[in-house]
C-alpha cells in the first residue's frame, strides 16, 4: 500500500452497491438467495456511483445531500468499516470518527470502563487515554458520574460520553456524522468548539450534517451527493447555494397543492418594479382566487431555500369570492446579496389550510455581502445590518 501523507484522503472512482431487497440473514432467505443467484437474477442497487475526489491535509469538508443520497455510506467507507464494491481509497494516518456511539456501550459497565474500551478500540492505548481522562470527563460533563454504571445514565449523558472519547483521540482525519443533531444547545456548541480546535491543529475534517448553517460555519469546501453521485464539489457557499436551490425546486413540485384558495400570480421586487436592494423596500404582489368568502391569516416568509424562513410577516385577511390582489410591503429589508425564496400560506380562523405552506416564487437582492463569521460559529440566518465602529485609545499616554 503506498504511503500517503497524514490527513490526506484519496477516493478513487468508488462504487458501492447494496441489495435492493434488504435480505435478512436467515436460513430460508439464504436458500432463496442461492436459488436466485443460480437464476442470475441479482437485484443490486448502486448507492454510490463513481465518486472521485481528493481531500488535502487540513481541509474542512462538508458533505450535504438529501436523505438516502449516500452520505452515511460514504462516511462508513471513509471510516473503513465498510469496503467499496469497486474502486479504491486510501486514507493517510489515523482516522477518528465523532459519531453516535451510544449503541456500542456496555450498560453494565461504568463510564470509566466504557471510555477505556473505546479508547483502545480507536487506537489509543490505556495509558494515553488515562492521561487525557480528565479532559474527556470534563468535556462530557460527567465529573460526578464517571464511576457509575452506564445504564443509570440519562440518554444525554450516554451520548456525551461517546462523543467525548472520540473527540480526544487526536486523529489525522476526523469524521463527524450528525453530531449536531443530538445533545442540548450547550453541548452542540462544545462540539463545534472542539472541531474548530482540531481543525486549527491541522486535522482534516469531514462533516456530514443536515444543519447547513453549521456546515457553512465549519467547512471551506462542500461536496454535494445526489442519488449516490457527486453533483457538486467546490467552495462551501457555492455548493450550499445550489443545494438549497434544488431543495426548493423539489419542495415546490411537491407542495402547494390542495388548498381551497388558489395562487394565481406572485411577483417580488423593489418599489414600483425596481430592483430590490438591501435595506430598501420590498414589494410582493400576490393574486389570489377564492371560491367563497374566506377569513383567515395570510403569512409570507423569506428563506434561502428550505421551508424555515429567515423572516416572517402575517396579516388578517378577508377574501371575497373571486380574485383579490394583495400587496405586501416590507420596509428596509435586512437581507444581504443573494437569491431568496418567498414562502406563503393562509390559515382560516379554525386552522384550515386555505393555502398550504409552499414556496411561491424567487427573488434576488442586490447589495452588500455578509461579514464573515469566525470559524465554528453558526449564524442561523442571513441578516444584514449596518454597523459603525469606533476605536478610541485610552492607554493613559497624554
Amino acid at each position, binding site marked *: 500500500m503506498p504511503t500517503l501523507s497524514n490527513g490526506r484522503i484519496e477516493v478513487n472512482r468508488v462504487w458501492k452497491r447494496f441489495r435492493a431487497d434488504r435480505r435478512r440473514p436467515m436460513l430460508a432467505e439464504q436458500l432463496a438467495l442461492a436459488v436466485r443467484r443460480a437464476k442470475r437474477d441479482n437485484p443490486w442497487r448502486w448507492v454510490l456511483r463513481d465518486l472521485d475526489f481528493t481531500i488535502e491535509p487540513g481541509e474542512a469538508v462538508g458533505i450535504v445531500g438529501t436523505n438516502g443520497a449516500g452520505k452515511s455510506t460514504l462516511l462508513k467507507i471513509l471510516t473503513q468499516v465498510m469496503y467499496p464494491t469497486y474502486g479504491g481509497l486510501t486514507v493517510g494516518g489515523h482516522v477518528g*470518527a465523532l459519531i453516535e456511539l451510544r449503541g456500542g456501550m456496555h450498560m453494565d459497565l461504568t463510564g470509566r470502563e466504557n471510555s477505556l474500551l473505546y479508547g483502545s478500540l480507536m487506537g489509543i492505548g490505556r495509558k494515553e487515554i488515562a492521561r487525557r481522562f480528565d479532559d474527556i470527563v470534563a468535556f462530557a460533563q460527567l465529573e460526578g458520574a464517571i464511576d457509575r454504571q452506564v445504564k443509570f445514565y440519562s440518554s444525554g449523558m450516554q451520548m456525551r460520553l461517546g462523543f467525548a472519547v472520540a473527540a480526544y483521540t487526536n486523529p489525522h482525519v476526523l469524521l463527524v456524522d450528525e453530531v449536531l443533531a443530538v445533545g442540548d444547545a450547550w453541548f452542540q456548541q462544545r462540539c463545534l468548539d472542539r472541531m474548530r480546535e482540531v481543525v486549527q491543529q491541522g486535522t482534516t475534517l469531514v462533516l456530514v450534517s443536515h444543519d447547513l448553517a453549521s456546515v457553512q460555519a465549519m467547512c471551506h469546501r462542500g461536496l454535494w451527493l445526489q442519488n449516490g453521485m457527486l453533483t457538486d464539489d467546490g467552495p462551501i457557499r457555492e455548493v450550499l447555494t445550489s443545494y438549497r436551490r434544488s431543495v426548493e425546486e423539489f419542495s415546490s413540485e411537491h407542495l402547494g397543492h390542495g388548498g381551497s384558495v388558489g395562487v394565481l400570480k406572485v411577483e417580488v421586487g423593489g418599489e414600483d418594479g425596481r430592483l430590490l436592494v438591501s435595506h430598501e423596500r420590498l414589494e410582493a404582489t400576490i393574486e389570489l382566487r377564492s371560491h367563497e368568502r374566506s377569513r383567515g391569516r395570510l403569512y409570507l416568509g423569506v428563506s434561502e431555500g428550505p421551508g424555515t424562513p429567515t423572516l416572517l410577516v402575517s396579516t388578517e385577511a378577508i377574501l371575497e369570492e373571486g380574485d383579490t390582489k394583495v400587496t405586501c410591503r416590507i420596509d428596509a429589508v435586512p437581507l444581504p446579496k443573494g437569491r431568496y425564496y418567498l414562502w406563503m400560506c393562509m390559515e382560516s380562523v379554525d386552522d384550515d389550510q386555505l393555502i398550504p405552506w409552499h414556496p411561491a416564487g424567487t427573488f434576488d437582492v442586490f447589495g452588500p455581502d455578509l461579514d464573515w463569521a469566525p470559524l465554528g460559529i453558526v449564524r442561523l440566518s442571513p441578516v444584514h445590518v449596518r454597523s459603525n465602529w469606533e476605536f478610541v485609545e485610552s492607554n493613559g499616554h497624554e
Partner: protein
Amino acid sequence: MRDLDSIPESPPAELRFRRRLGLVSTSVELWTNREVVRSLADRDFRARYKQAFLGVAWAVINPLILALVFTFTVRRFANVETEGVPYIIWAYTGLVAWGFFSGTATGATNCLVNNQALLNKVKVPRETFPAAAVVLAGIDTAISMLGLAVIFMIYGRLPHTQAVWVPVIFLVQLVFTVGVALIVSIVVVYLRDLRQIVPILVQIGLFATPVAYNISQLLSPGWRLAYSFVNPMAPVIDSYRRTILYGYPPQWLYLGAGALTSLVLLVGGIRIFKRLEAGIADLI
C-alpha cells in the same frame, strides 16, 4: 458541477475492490491490536460477573456440578475405566478442557452479532472479537483449573510428571478452538439460525466427546483413529487424562490425527473469516 449523465450505468470490471487476505498479514494485524483484544475480553469478563453474587466462583461451580451429575448418572449405570483415579477428578479434568472449547464456541457465536453498533462505527480488525472470545473462555478455564488444584489437594494427589506434555496438547486444542471460533463467529452474521444451532451442537458435543466416559471402552483402535479426525476434542481430552492423571505419554497417533484436522480448520477458518468479514457492515 459535474455532468451526471457522463457517469456510466455500471463500473468497469477492472476497478473491482480487492483486499489482502493473507495469513501473515492477518496475524500481524491481530498482534498489533492485542490491546483491543485485551480490552474486549476485559469488558466481557467484568460484565459477566458484575452482578453475580458468587462472581468468578461460577467458573468452578459450573463444571463441578456437571461432574457431580455425571457421578450420579453415567458412573452409576456404566462401569467407566479410570485406571484407579477417583471418578470426580477424572470427570472434572475432562470438563475443564471441554469448558474451554464450549465457552469459546458459545462466546464466538455472539461476539460479532452482539457488537453490531461498534462494528458499524469503529474501524477495528474484526478478528479481535473472536480472539477476545477465546481469551475470555481461557480466563474462565484458568479459574476452573484452580478448582482442579483444590480437588487434587483434597484427594492428596499430584499431577504426574508426564504433564509436561500438556502445553503441546493445549496447542492442538487451541488451534481447533480458534478455527471453530472464527468460522462460527462470521457465518452467524449471514445465517442467524446458527445462534440456535450452536448451543445444541455444543450440548451434543459434550456427549459425543469422551468427557463422561472412556472412549477406549467403546471404540476399536481403527475407529478411534477415524473418530480423532472427525472430533479432535476426543484425543485432546484423552491425552490430558493420560498425562496428568495416569502418567502415560499421549497416544501420538490419535493426537496427531486431531492436530491435522485442527490445522485444516484454522487455515480454512481464517480464509472464510477474511472473505466474509468484508460484508459485515453491509449486513448489520
